[in-house]
């Protein structure tokens, strides 16, 4: 892992962490949802500062460059995160559907009652 890659990792992680904190500060992001990104950034910084375990892992798995291990690790985590986001979106869609239906049905009930009272 070159020193440049390590510096880039640290800088990008710091920037993305600052970005996340800015959103929390501006009332745009719930703390629950910020936790993942903060831990993820911290992990990347950790890997950049202490790359030795990556060398060890690379040797163990027969992968030539420790940088590739870092990429693999990032891709795995992001894949899992994407799937979890899909799950959450799916649940949100269903919740919205239920809400819209409830509002519409309530409206219908209210209108019918109002009509009855007129008659």
């Amino acid at each position, binding site marked *: 892992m070159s020193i440049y890659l390590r510096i880039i990792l640290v800088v990008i992680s710091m920037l993305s962490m600052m970005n996340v*904190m800015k959103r*929390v500060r501006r*009332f*745009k992001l719930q*703390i629950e949802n910020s*936790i993942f990104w*903060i831990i993820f950034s911290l992990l990347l910084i950790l890997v950049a500062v202490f790359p030795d375990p990556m060398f060890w892992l690379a040797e163990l798995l027969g992968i030539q460059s420790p940088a590739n291990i870092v990429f693999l690790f990032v891709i795995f985590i992001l894949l899992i995160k994407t799937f979890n986001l899909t799950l959450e979106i799916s649940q949100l869609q269903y*919740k919205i559907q239920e*809400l819209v239906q*409830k509002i519409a049905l309530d409206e219908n009930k209210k209108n019918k009652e109002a009509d009855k009272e007129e008659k």
Partner: protein
Amino acid sequence: MKVLVIIPAYNEELNIKKVVSNLIDHYPQYNYVVVNDGSADSTSQICHQEGYNIIDLPVNLGLAGAFQTGLKYADQEGYDCAIQFDADGQHRPEYIEDLLKEIENGYDIVIGSRFVTEKKPFSMRMLGNRMIERAIKFSTGKVLTDPTSGMRMYSKKIIHEFASNINYGPEPDTISFMIKQGASVKDVQVKMDERTAGESYLNLTRSIAYMLRMMLSILFIQNFRKRRKAD
């Protein structure tokens, strides 16, 4: 002072009737509202049958969303203070009076604590409680003897702030943030019961995730937040 007891309830069919009827029969001086958080069991039906004051959420929001609904109601109806009160029978209504006294003395947030005069036991369950206490002490300099207690009373101006903003969940990290921002917080000794029936929400994985979130939030994230005074 107009006091509202907010009772968030998620699948509490075994406990809700006992808790609410005790409140109505013995403490008629307090108003209450049950916030049914989209329960899948008969919590809502029981409340309607008994004629309780209930807000039914059409979908499940989780404790923070359900409790905030109660705060919005308190804000709308002009209550002077509101208390979070568990639907599982852990909280005892006889202590509401003690908490209320401190709100009348001018405190913003009053916490019903099990460990003001009592000693905190050294158990696995109290490990998380202790860690959060340390984190808040480190972050704010103030000792909260029972930071995970759910029995918290809020004054009028705090109700409004909590009701209308993001990231004001009823959790220790919010309290830590409020202390940092100059709110006055007071612990009052209370006794709590073991939950009488039903299952606790926290298992091991959830407890670990919760602790991680709380520690990161208290020690790190809350330092970057600012307070929006909605008035």
